[in-house]
């Protein structure tokens, strides 16, 4: 098995584990009635660790799985997560010297943008997400939680990318 296939396998495993964690556990962990969105976090970390193309691909796969959970249109999460994953990769490239803090900031802002984008697209497709009175609460909580959780998610994504768990890359 070559390095590329091993990497695909590792990413697939990570996405499946994240999905199981989301549906089995995090769905019920609701501080202020809002649960974390680790599939979105995975897309962002994919971009941070593997670059914009990786972010887009991981975001697409994670998003499609996420869409299967929801009752809305299929593909909306996939599109949003892919765009956010791509943007995270572009931002990481633009940074001269990475640090944990910058990665956390990108994860926080990326999560906020991802949720807002999802709300806008869903609204266009007939849902009431943008007009949801809890919109800003959802954005705030998901961003903060993802910003913190990215510290745990980044080493796992580095492992999936084949950079090793103890790599110095942020």
């Amino acid at each position, binding site marked *: 098995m070559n390095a590329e296939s091993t990497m695909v396998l590792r990413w697939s495993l990570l996405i499946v584990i994240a999905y199981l964690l989301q549906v089995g556990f995090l769905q019920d962990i609701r501080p202020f009635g809002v649960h974390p969105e680790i599939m979105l976090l995975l897309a962002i970390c994919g971009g941070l660790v593997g670059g*914009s193309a990786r972010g887009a691909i991981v975001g697409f796969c994670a998003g499609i799985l996420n869409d*299967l959970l929801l009752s809305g249109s299929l593909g909306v999460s996939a599109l949003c997560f892919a765009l956010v994953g791509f943007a995270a990769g572009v931002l990481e490239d633009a940074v001269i010297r990475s640090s944990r803090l910058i990665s956390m900031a990108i994860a926080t802002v990326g999560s906020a943008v991802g949720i807002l984008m999802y709300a806008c697209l869903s609204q266009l497709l007939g849902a009431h*997400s943008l007009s*949801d009175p809890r919109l800003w609460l959802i954005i705030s909580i998901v961003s903060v939680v993802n910003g913190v959780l990215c510290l745990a998610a980044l080493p796992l994504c580095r492992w999936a990318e084949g950079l090793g768990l103890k790599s110095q890359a942020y």
Partner: protein
Amino acid sequence: MRPHSQPGKNRQRSRYVLVVITLLTITIITLDARGVPLISSARDSSRDALAPVRGASRWVTTPFRNAWNGITGYDELREENEQLRQRLDQRTANSMREKNAQEELSKLKEQLNISFLGSTQSQVARVTAGASSNFADYTVELDKGSELGLAVGNPVVTKGGLVGRIVRVTKKRSVVQLITDPNFSVGVTVGPAQNQGVGHGTGTRRRFIVDRGIDLSDEVSTKDSVFAGGIENSIMPPDLFIPIGTVDKVTPDEAARVQVLQVNYTVEFGRLDVVQVIKWVPAS
């Protein structure tokens, strides 16, 4: 920093990947919105395939979820504990005649003996999952699907009254659009005079609004019962009167020449567990 190799080439590849993925997702969204059977069946099959995986993962994580609920809901737990203690005392006084299993059985029997259903064919089902989205999601998932004869459009009820209707069905599962959804409109019959109107959900679990069809001259008062059904060409069976709730407030709308009714639901949406699916589909 992550290692870079041939940045120009990488950038070009990234853009190519983004364009392909964007076009792919837009295609999926469009096909799904148009209800193309290929996409719907792929989605339904994956939902069916993932259902046991979701169930297993929820079972595995039960202790962690319970621990979290214990931490975050400490006050509620204490209050609930107090109530339970009182109930336990009562039960002991009654010589503990009934066991938990009997209660469960009676709960199911209760759903089987819904008076307003008459001899209409129905199927008992259990709510397996509530909303999965952070945003307002007015759906619940049932553990029964098309293999037991459920179909899109089937009304879903409890002893309390109308819960919603099935909007998506796979072999083993169904998704119910709750009546609380603002997009859920249904023909209603109000009060002893049987005035007919149209009502819809408001997004909350407390209020249903009837804002069409009840003229200013129609006799309506608070505490009047509101039923779905009893109307030809409706999304509910014309021969059944399914309770929705009771009128809480009547407000005349002089501009539209109608009375707007605020209705309190009779179903407790926070405690949905066992429901009945009426095997009836609207004509169109």
